[in-house]
């Protein structure tokens, strides 16, 4: 994958650093960013910074991954992202007792208060809308489990074993074709979409990238290991029922039948994972490190807040016959002329 086309001064500056191209100081003040969560430029810049820790870029020159200027810029973007996230997230006002963490997670995830994107996809979405949904989700699923894996070395004991138990499944229990990222690629091909890593990066907006960037952020910072655990728990705990609906919707719009395996697999797998995540990962982590209890709940709330925001915006766009995908590059260039 090559570096994507920049969307503004921040992503342009990050791209220059990655490609070792001469660049002046970044022409955009991060403090002026209105909403870091939905900012296309900032989220792409963050994405590119994090991607250096994942698969990297074919046109990267030198060791940009640990470039100090890049890390400094990334830290500023992260600060803004976190500040805007705290404003958006609605965590409980009372401090959570460590013993109550699994119950607090269950309450948070039982009523997300958001619109039902999964029901719409199950019964109403057109083929084009379903394809759009899969394109957005591919930003996460093609690197599925990698962002949460950052927390493995940051945990100890029972919570570490629990995270491994979940991730072992995500990575196909040792079988490459059964890795969940591979099952997702199969599902993409079953809809006639291009399954190459990074192929649709230019089309997905800031909010879509934010939903994965938040996991990279939490996972790459020791201080946020509790929130990473909470994020994974919320992710797993809100998975089974929607995946059942996605599978039905996938088949309804004509996706190749056995390529719905990704969704079918997740219904049963996440029924296990949600228990392990809530009790063995988060519950034991809170017992072992009681000071992390609030962070665990914050991470879960952050996951749900971004999911709900995305669902609301997507359904709203579709209701007026529009798309949340950015125009194709050729369209953008034509518009710029």
């Amino acid at each position, binding site marked *: 994958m090559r570096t994507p086309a920049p969307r503004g001064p921040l992503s342009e500056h990050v791209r220059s650093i990655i490609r070792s191209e001469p660049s002046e100081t970044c022409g955009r003040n991060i403090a002026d960013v209105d909403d870091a969560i939905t900012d296309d430029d900032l989220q792409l810049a963050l994405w590119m910074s994090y991607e250096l820790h994942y698969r990297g870029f074919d046109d990267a020159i030198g060791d940009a991954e640990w470039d100090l200027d890049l890390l400094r810029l990334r830290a500023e973007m992260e600060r803004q992202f976190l500040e805007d996230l705290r404003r958006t997230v609605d965590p409980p006002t009372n401090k959570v007792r460590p013993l109550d963490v699994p119950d607090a997670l269950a309450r948070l995830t*039982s009523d*997300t208060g958001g619109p039902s994107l999964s029901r719409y996809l199950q019964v109403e979405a057109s083929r084009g809308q379903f394809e759009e949904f899969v394109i957005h989700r591919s930003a996460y699923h093609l690197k599925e489990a990698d962002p949460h894996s950052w927390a493995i070395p940051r945990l100890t004991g029972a919570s570490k074993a629990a995270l491994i138990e979940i991730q072992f*499944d995500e990575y196909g229990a040792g079988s490459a074709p059964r890795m969940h990222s591979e099952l997702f690629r199969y599902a993409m091909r079953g809809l006639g979409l291009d399954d190459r890593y990074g192929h649709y990066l230019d089309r997905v907006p800031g909010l879509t990238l934010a939903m994965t960037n938040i996991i990279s952020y939490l996972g790459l910072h020791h201080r946020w290991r509790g929130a990473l655990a909470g994020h994974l728990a919320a992710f797993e705990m809100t998975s089974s029922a929607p995946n*059942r609906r996605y599978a039905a919707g996938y088949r309804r719009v004509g996706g190749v039948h056995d390529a719905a395996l990704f969704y079918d697999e997740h219904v*049963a797998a996440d029924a296990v994972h949600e228990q392990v995540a809530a*009790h063995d990962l988060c519950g034991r982590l809170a017992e072992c490190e009681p000071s992390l209890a609030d962070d665990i709940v914050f991470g879960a709330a952050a996951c749900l807040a971004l999911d709900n925001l995305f669902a609301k915006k997507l359904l709203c766009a579709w209701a007026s016959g529009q798309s949340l995908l950015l125009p194709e590059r050729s369209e953008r260039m034509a518009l710029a002329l």
Partner: protein
Amino acid sequence: MTDHRATIQAYPNGPLIVRGDFEVQDHLGNPLPNARRTVALCRCGRSALKPFCDGTHKKPMARRVPEHDLPSDNGQGAGRPS
């Protein structure tokens, strides 16, 4: 690698999680096709994937309202939309 004795762990308000050396069979003794080393067995009876859990236990039960308590226009919906 030694085989581990099977353990069955009951999770609060949730399924039975089975780990270790086990085989899930149908009523005729045929092994069920699950390739997972850890499975969740349904405890609520409402899973569409029985004997495996599919998360349905989290959905509220449909409420049965006595007829004389029904409002005159419509009956109450079953559970919470999601």
